[in-house]
């Protein structure tokens, strides 16, 4: 796979200039994620207004792909209902890890397309977070442990 397919402009842009990259003053939910294999630590903040996500942000940084994915996620979930965000999450997981393209409900097609550049990781198993939760839309506290495969280069 060509590097430019993995590192598309959207990813490079969000990797360099992550959006919503700050803590929330009064979050209603928060989750911490630590990837013990690559060392990334990310904290995600949400402020719910009823069942709607009023604000979303994150702190911490990882590689370009993980930073861009956190950044894009915050942009996309702001203003959504929690149920919609969960649906988008499931679609994205399938897009990024499964062979068959998932079926996407019409109202989420545009969002799923915005996340499509991240699905280049499918060709790089070592760059995927196997059982990561994109955002724990629950009462966060201590985030769940995340696991990804060890990042070693491939032999010549």
């Amino acid at each position, binding site marked *: 796979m060509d*590097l430019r397919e*993995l*590192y598309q402009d959207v990813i*490079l842009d969000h*990797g*360099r200039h992550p959006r919503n990259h700050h803590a929330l003053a009064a979050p209603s939910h928060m989750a911490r994620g630590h990837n013990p*294999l*690559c*060392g*990334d*630590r990310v904290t995600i903040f949400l402020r719910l207004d009823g069942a709607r996500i009023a604000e979303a942000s994150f702190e911490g*940084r*990882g*590689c*370009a*792909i993980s*930073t861009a994915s956190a950044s894009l996620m915050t942009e996309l979930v702001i203003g959504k209902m929690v149920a919609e965000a969960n649906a988008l999450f499931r679609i994205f997981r399938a897009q990024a890890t499964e062979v068959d393209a998932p079926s996407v409900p019409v109202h989420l097609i545009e969002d799923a397309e915005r996340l499509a550049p991240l699905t280049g990781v499918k060709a*790089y198993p070592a*760059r995927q977070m196997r059982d990561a939760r994109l955002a724990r839309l629950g009462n966060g506290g201590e985030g769940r442990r995340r696991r990804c495969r*060890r*990042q*070693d*280069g*491939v*032999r*010549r």
Partner: protein
Amino acid sequence: MISALEHHSNIVPWQMLRERGVRLVVAPVDTAGGFDLPGLERCLGPRTRLVALTHVANVTGEMLPVEAIVRLAHACGAKVLLDGCQAAPRLPVDVAALDCDFYAFSGHKCYGPTGIGALYGKRALLEAMPPWQGGGDMIITVTFDETLYQAPPHRFEAGTPDISGAVGPAAALDFMTQLDRDAIAAHERSLTGYARARLAGVAGVRLVGPEATAIGVVSFTVESVHPHDLATVLDQHALAIRAGHHCAQLLMDRLGLAATARVSFGVYNDEADVDALIAAVEAAQRIFGG
């Protein structure tokens, strides 16, 4: 006592012993991530039983002053175990001359298979030690009342050994001893020096750890390129490196780094590989620098 340079495999087993009343002391590193001999000396005391240190650090490649460490530790009545995983493939190692009490290394770092390694111990110490595991083959006689154990090393090898697994490292070590061990060390030192010099010449690259005794591995960070992104770009240039914390989180925490990129050399590498590395690092900078 361990140091802040250690691989998790020389930290976690000792932590497990804390449940049995063992106190674990961590000797410091200096701000550059270098081994601190006076710091170790300050930590040593009459109650120090075992000093377990790496011979060559796996993140920075620093070779520790093990002769001095052994002398200091023995003067306090402590035993010394050296983790030779990084050193054994690179340096001629004479355990008797080092006078260390134990020495461990892994097969897969010596061009051999994974999942097997070797532990050396001074005979008198091994003879004084009880077996850690029971089974067949480690005994002289067994009755229902009593079992007489074999002499070391058999006493420590209960059950049918991993014979097929041991054939691999033996062949690998034969391969290594046919090469001139001093020449391997000279080759690794010169490649390490060359890589450090070339990397230091690239704007935005920061080398991790001291230069003086570095051998075999070079850790570095590149401004605006995360180590994992760098590893992926290098992979596309047919260069296999490791990115991450290298199972040395104590050291990474001291250095305030989440991850580094690390190249490690083998007998088959040469300066052209380093030149390719530099070109690929610069290519990564062009992608992510913008």
